[in-house]
């Protein structure tokens, strides 16, 4: 299985990772190898196998609807790059 340069560039955009042309060539090779490995798994006959949502054979525990958290804004905002009036500030985004 091969992966195209366009695929790599698209995935990089989605992941917000900057890759230059040289890196794309290297990734073409590396990701291609990984996909080849996955391809080998595809050879297994899974027709009779239920898709697995989670590798553990266990069921999720649920929590009662009770407030257990207290306000720790100060602690969290102490490590934030920028805050104002209790808000976290980030570079301007408008969609």
């Amino acid at each position, binding site marked *: 299985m091969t992966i195209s340069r366009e695929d790599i560039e698209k995935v990089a955009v989605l992941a917000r990772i900057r890759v230059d042309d040289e890196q794309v060539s290297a990734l073409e090779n590396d990701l291609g190898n990984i996909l080849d490995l996955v391809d080998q798994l595809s050879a297994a006959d899974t027709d009779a196998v239920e898709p697995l*949502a989670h590798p553990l054979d266990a069921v999720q525990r649920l929590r009662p*609807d*009770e407030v257990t958290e207290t306000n720790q804004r100060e602690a*969290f905002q102490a490590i934030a790059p920028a805050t104002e009036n*209790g*808000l*976290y500030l980030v570079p301007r*985004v408008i969609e």
Partner: protein
Amino acid sequence: MQWDIVIGLEIHVQLATQTKIFSGSSTAYGAEPNTQANAVDLAMPGTLPVPNEQAFRYAVMFGLAVNAEIERRSVFERKNYFYPDLPKGYQTTQLERPIVGPGHVDIDLANGETKRVRIHHAHLEEDAGKSLHEDFHGMTGVDLNRAGTPLVEVVTEPDMNNAEEAVAFAKKLHSLVTSLGICDGDMSQGSMRFDVNISLKPKGSDTLGTRTETKNLNSFRFMEQAIAHEVERQMDILEDGGVIVQETRLYNGDRDESRSMRSKEEANDYRYFPCPDLLPVEIDDAFIEQARSRLPELPDARKARFKEQYGLNDYDAGLLSGDAKLSAFFEEAVSHGKDAKLTANWIQGEFSARLNAEEKTVTESPITGAQLGDLIVRIADNTVSSSGAKKVFESLWSGESDNVDAIIDAQGLKQVSDTGELEKMVDEVLAGMPDQVAQYQNEDDPKKRKKMLGGFMGPLMKASKGQGNPKLFNEILVKKLGG
């Protein structure tokens, strides 16, 4: 060319749990920014989500109320995208195995018909935070209090064919979730948000046209306007021979205009995959039966009961049964006031008008159902006239007094219904208006006579200081004037 309109809805319903879907942070509305956003909500490294049982119970109650199958084993997926109000970089949601499977809701239309709208599915997911684009020195402020609030997203089949049906469905859903008590229904606080998918196709065609999605409508009025706006936009394009671009649009209700947010080409590639942090959730029969036992009376059943128990007509029963709080108010009033039709009229008239004028909800009403009931008793037994009753209502509303009889006494609103006394007043007034009396008696047209009768009422009401019973005055007048 004639077009068929095809509408499907996606509705985000904020669940009225105390805490978030995956953390023990409070979901109370209106707190100081970020005081209810803790380690899990902020996606701090090393934190793990633990789902809220109540969110599942509410989702199951919703599923039962829309006649849907409940998925016994539901799975959470990650929907990946980057936005500052989504700290994890993905929204935890359900895609392949949503908790609520196919169901349906019946809506009543203005022409008296009932229409079935199918529910495709409903799933549990978490809400995002809020971005504030006001002036923060060119930066965006982020409040994550809402991040992680549990939502049920309801997805319908494209079964609606005009704005009336879509709004009727939206109102029905609002009435359902508030009656269930799983959502506070406060649209101004974003408790319910609607996305509308619209497409047009040539009348009678079987092939669906390209659809657009108009996002985040938070009132029934905006929804109706946005649909009208989008239908017109698409019709203009199609009739000019153009093609509809599949896209997401934003509607500005204040300006009645919309703009494209993103097209299909730019559509996010969400790369869904099962969330490794969460195991599948299994719902057993006991859980479902317990949820079923908590189902309250639902709007359809309540409407039928209102018709049966109080003899209300379909229209009154429909209006009073939709909102659980209004229904409770009505029933409290009727238990005091007895006369159901008169109570229904006052609730839909004076009471609703005042709530709307002051933008209040039923629970914020300064008068209680019992007080309105007491007033209805005094109207029904002729103690006060309808204009007097409005004055009593006014005093109750302003909080001047909370006792109907005390207000009637204090303001002298008691009607005079003593026939002898009223006859005396009529005699005096007629004696002072000989010309009008002669004119009346020379008139043959019963319609004109009826109208002329009104000319005597003003002076009579004045003579009785507004306290004469108008109905009795009328009877006496007709008798004295000779038919």
